[in-house]
């Protein structure tokens, strides 16, 4: 006896449940997409507004020239080169320490009380507000270490501030290298360091560098830490001079310069603070873009 064919109607019919499900899906997608789009709007508004107001002043000459007429006119060269000094020196200090500390924490450390304390310190240090770092830098570098108000003190303060984030991002990059690679190396009699050098570091370098470069923008933007430890209101520097400062000098910085132009100096040409902001923002965007480009390049060579 032949079996009755299974009923075929109904399986693909639109039931109220399916309709409801599809509505919910469309709604969810629309809401999420709107939120993603919404975060582009402030960026465009900020950049657009700044460039619009800064336009009369904005030029290469503005970057290369020194401030004139009691800072109410002229350029921003001393502040621009000062920020380069501060950011460069701070990362020169924090990158090797941060990367090596992260390698220890991720590759060597076992779960004991010492390493738990170190982990806790890293997490908490990352959450300390920059003004507190500023006070710490003032006490530790300016007074206790007797570096005085100087580029050195300010850069070290910035280094302390960026260190925990560099450690965290480096650890993440190291952790993305599969554990199977390490085990394969250990199995053939390689030490941990041989494994790290041959396999772990070469395959996490793009993530490590990205994390470091993202700290450039943070160090360049912070005002309080440098204001307390080594940045000054005004410093006389020759136009376009690349090496105007010694490490023990005080310097100008873009973030601080923007703050003083906007709040401390009377009768500033209206477009001047906006142009300063555009240069600061532009430098940060250039650095971030180069980070992305570097990551794309290194990921293109990714090996698994």
């Amino acid at each position, binding site marked *: 006896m032949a079996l009755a064919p299974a009923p075929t109607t109904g399986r693909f019919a639109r039931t109220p449940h399916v309709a409801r499900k599809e509505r919910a899906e469309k709604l969810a997608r629309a809401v999420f997409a709107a939120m993603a789009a919404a975060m582009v709007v402030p960026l465009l508004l900020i950049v657009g507004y700044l460039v619009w107001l800064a336009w009369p002043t904005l030029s290469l000459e503005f970057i290369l020239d020194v401030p004139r007429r009691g800072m109410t006119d002229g350029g921003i060269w001393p502040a621009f080169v000062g920020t380069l000094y501060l950011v460069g020196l701070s990362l020169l200090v924090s990158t090797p320490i941060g990367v090596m500390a992260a390698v220890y924490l991720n590759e060597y450390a076992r779960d004991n009380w010492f390493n738990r304390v170190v982990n806790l310190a890293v997490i908490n240090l990352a959450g300390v507000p920059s003004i507190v770092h500023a006070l710490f830098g003032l006490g530790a570098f300016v007074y206790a270490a007797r570096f005085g108000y100087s580029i050195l003190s300010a850069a070290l303060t910035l280094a302390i501030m960026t260190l925990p984030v560099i450690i965290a991002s480096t650890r993440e990059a190291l952790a993305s290298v599969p554990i*199977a*690679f390490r085990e394969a*190396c*250990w*199995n*053939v009699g*390689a030490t941990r360091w041989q494994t790290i050098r*041959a*396999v772990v570091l070469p395959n996490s370098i793009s993530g490590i560098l990205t994390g470091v470069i993202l700290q450039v923008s943070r160090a360049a933007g912070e005002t309080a830490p440098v204001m307390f430890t080594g940045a000054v209101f005004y410093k006389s520097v020759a136009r376009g001079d690349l090496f105007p400062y010694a490490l023990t000098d005080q310097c100008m910085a873009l973030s601080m310069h923007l703050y003083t132009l906007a709040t401390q100096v009377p009768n500033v040409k209206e477009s001047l603070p906006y142009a300063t902001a555009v240069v600061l923002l532009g430098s940060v965007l250039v650095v971030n873009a180069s980070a992305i480009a570097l990551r794309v390049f290194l990921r293109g060579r990714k*090996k698994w």
Partner: protein
Amino acid sequence: MKRIEVQGLRLAYDSKEVLHGISFDVYHNEIFAVIGPAQSGKSSMLRCLNRTIDFTANAKMSGTVRVDGEDVRRTRDVYALRRKIGMVAPLPVGLPLTIYDNVAFAPRAAGLSGKADLDAIVERCLRQAALWDEVKDRLANLGTALSGGQQQRLTIARALSHQPEILCLDEFSIAIDPVTTMRIEDVLKELRREMTIVLVTNLTQQARRLSDRTMFLLDGEVVEIDRSDVIFSGAAKSKRTKDYVSGVFG
């Protein structure tokens, strides 16, 4: 002559004991199969032999493991111990290096640097692993770009590169096709002449095809160790062994 002696080996991860005091010996130039269902402690047992268990922070090992008479936990040079034992993991792991560097990695880590020596080792190991003919023209390509079966043979070549006297394979065939599996099995039959092989597998047929003796490990305990022809001919002493090899469970 005894190559590996294991006595009362216990292993615990935190408070969970996975090996409950197992004892067995492995002799020179035999293929010693370890069979048993998943979670019976086979892989953990291998990690105790070359002490890569050290890298698992919460593992606690007791009992004695001797390799060529030397207690692995008292050995002065653990890296030399690991070079004495070639280890092949279940999933193929091509290191993200070139094919050449994959095989030359272990000799280099051991301090060898002469190009002629390295070239010779790379060729010998790739030949032994039956991979040479397929890759000899592209040794500078990435090992990770090879197919799964080729990567598993690359893994074997790497395990042979530090001239081990004992070769341990942990379910080497679970991620590769039957043809490659048969090729590797032929390789193993060749290698038996020069080294001792510990073959962990949950394919009872593979153990039957290849091994001289077989150990049945179940839930961290040794159920039975005997000649493979005894175990697989239905003459096993334990009913659990009989049931397992005849496919009643597992």
